[in-house]
C-alpha cells in the first residue's frame, strides 16, 4: 500500500500540508477551517466558493470553483466568497425588450473596452465579454444564451476594469428573454383553462376513491403503456 502523498498549499498565504487529490474546498477544511462563507452547494452550481489562485512559478492569476477543482502542490489561493456589486431594481412587468434596455439599467456596460478579462476570470468558461458585447448592441437573446450557465460567483465583476457587473446585467437579459422574447406555451394555456374549468376533477376524485389493488393494476397498465420516444 502506498502512503497518502501530502502536498503544500498556501491558504491566504499560510502554508498547510494536505493530502493530494482533495478539492480546494476539502483541502481548506482538512487544514482546519470550518467554512461558513465560501461553501454553498459544493457541486458547482451556486458560485459561493469562487477562488483565485496562482501556481508556483507562474505569473498568471487563475480562477476556480473551490468545490470543483483539485488542489495542487504549491498553490497560492484564497476564496472570494463575496463581490460587492449593485443590482438594478426593476419591475419585470414594465421592462420592455427594446435594444437599449440593458444599457438603461446598467449604463456601465457601455464602458466595456473589450479587454476580455471577464472571460478569463470565469470559472465556468463562459464567453462573458461576448455577452456584454451582445448587450451593447441590443442582442438580448444572444446575451441570455451566452450567459445561461452563469453561477453568479461575481469574479467577472471583481476583475473588470470598466467596473461592469456582468452577472447582474445577464440576469436581466435572461429574464427579458424568458418573459418577452420566448412566447408563452399554447399547450400550457390550454391545460390551465381545462383545469380551471374542472375537466380533471371527476377523474382524480375517482382515482382517490379507487381500491388499492385496482389502482395498482391501473398504475402498472399506465407504466406499461408509457409514451415511447418519438422519432
Amino acid at each position, binding site marked *: 500500500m502506498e502512503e497518502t502523498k501530502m502536498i503544500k498549499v498556501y491558504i491566504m498565504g499560510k502554508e498547510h500540508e494536505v493530502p493530494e487529490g482533495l478539492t480546494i474546498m476539502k483541502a481548506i477544511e482538512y487544514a482546519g477551517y470550518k467554512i461558513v462563507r465560501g461553501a454553498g452547494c459544493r457541486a458547482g452550481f451556486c458560485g459561493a466558493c469562487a477562488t483565485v489562485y496562482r501556481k508556483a512559478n507562474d505569473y498568471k492569476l487563475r480562477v476556480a470553483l473551490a468545490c470543483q477543482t483539485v488542489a495542487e502542490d504549491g498553490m497560492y489561493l484564497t476564496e472570494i466568497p463575496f463581490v460587492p456589486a449593485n443590482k438594478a431594481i426593476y419591475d419585470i412587468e414594465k421592462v420592455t425588450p427594446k*435594444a*437599449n434596455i440593458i444599457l438603461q439599467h446598467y449604463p456601465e456596460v457601455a464602458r*466595456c*473596452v*473589450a*479587454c*476580455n478579462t471577464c*472571460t*478569463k476570470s470565469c470559472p465556468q468558461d463562459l464567453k462573458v*465579454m*461576448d455577452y456584454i*458585447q451582445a448587450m*451593447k*448592441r*441590443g*442582442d438580448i437573446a444572444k446575451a441570455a444564451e451566452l450567459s445561461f450557465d452563469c453561477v453568479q460567483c461575481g469574479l467577472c465583476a471583481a476583475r473588470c*476594469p470598466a467596473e461592469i457587473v456582468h452577472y447582474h446585467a445577464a440576469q436581466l437579459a435572461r429574464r427579458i428573454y424568458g418573459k418577452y422574447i420566448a412566447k408563452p406555451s399554447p399547450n400550457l394555456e390550454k391545460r390551465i383553462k381545462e383545469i380551471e374549468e374542472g375537466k380533471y376533477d371527476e377523474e382524480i376524485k375517482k382515482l382517490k376513491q379507487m381500491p388499492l389493488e385496482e389502482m395498482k393494476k391501473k398504475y402498472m397498465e399506465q407504466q406499461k403503456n408509457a409514451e415511447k420516444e418519438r422519432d
Partner: protein
Amino acid sequence: MKIPYFPGCSLKSDAAHFEQSAIEFSKTLGVELVELPNWNCCGTVHSLTTDDIMHHLACVRNMVHAQELGKQLGTNKLITLCAMCYNTLAQVNELAKKKPDDLKTANEFIDDLPDYEGKVEVLHLLTFLNNYVSFEKIAKVVKGRLNGLKLAPYYGCLLVRPEHVKVDDRERPVLLSKLLGMVGAKCVEFPYAVECCGSYHTVNLKEAVIEKTYTIVNNARENGADAIVLSCPLCEFNLDKRQKDVKAVYPTFEPMPVFYFTELLALASGKKVNVNAHYVSPENVLRKYGL
C-alpha cells in the same frame, strides 16, 4: 467579391436600416459584405492619450478578426459604415502601424487571439465605392434615378477629421455629392456639412444638441434641400430624432427627413425605403419626387 465588414452596435439596433440598405445595395454591385465573426464594439470614442493602450484593445481585437477573415477571403480590407466606428478603427489601425511596440503590448495582452500583424486596410464604404468600385460603374449598374431629389450632404466630424483618417477634404468634402449626383440626386451647397451635430451631448446636454439641430436643419432648408443625407447613426439620431425636441422649443420649426446615403443608393437601385425607421417621415418628400 467578398469583403469583411464591421457593423458596430448601432447598426444592430437603431440604425438597422443603415446596415440593411448597405448590404442590399452592395449586393447589386456584386459585393458581399461578410460580417466579422465575434466582433466587438469598436471602443468608441478614440482615446487620444498616447499610452492608453487599454482603450485601443477593442479595435485591435476587431482588426485580428478582420485579418483572420480576410485571410480566408483573400483580402486585407475591412469595410465599415458608421462614421464613429470607422474613425475609431482607422485611428487605432494607424497607431498599430506607426507604433509597433504598443501593438506588441496589445498583442501580448490579447492572448486568446492570434497577433494582429498590422496589415488590415480600414475603409469607409464611401471610400471603398470610390476607390475600388468607381462611381461611374455605380451609375451604370443602378437602374433607377433619384429624380433630382434635393439633398444637403452632411459629413459631421468623424468622416473628415483628423487628417490621417479623413475620407475626403476636411473643409469641402464632395464624395456624397458626387456619388448621389451620379444616381440622379441634386446636392445643394451646404455650409454646415462639416458642423458638429453635438455628438454625445445628446445624453446629458440635450439643449446644446437642440440648438445644433435647429441650426443645421434650417441651413439645409435655406439652401434649398428637401432632405439631409449622412453616414453616422449618432448624427442621424441628433438630426432626425432630436427634431421632436427642436419642435418643442421652436414651435414654427419645420421638420426635414434625414437619410443614410445607403438608403438612397438602395432606393435608386429599386429597393424601398423603410419609412418606419425614420422619426421625421420621408414619405412626403419621396412622393414629391415620385420616388
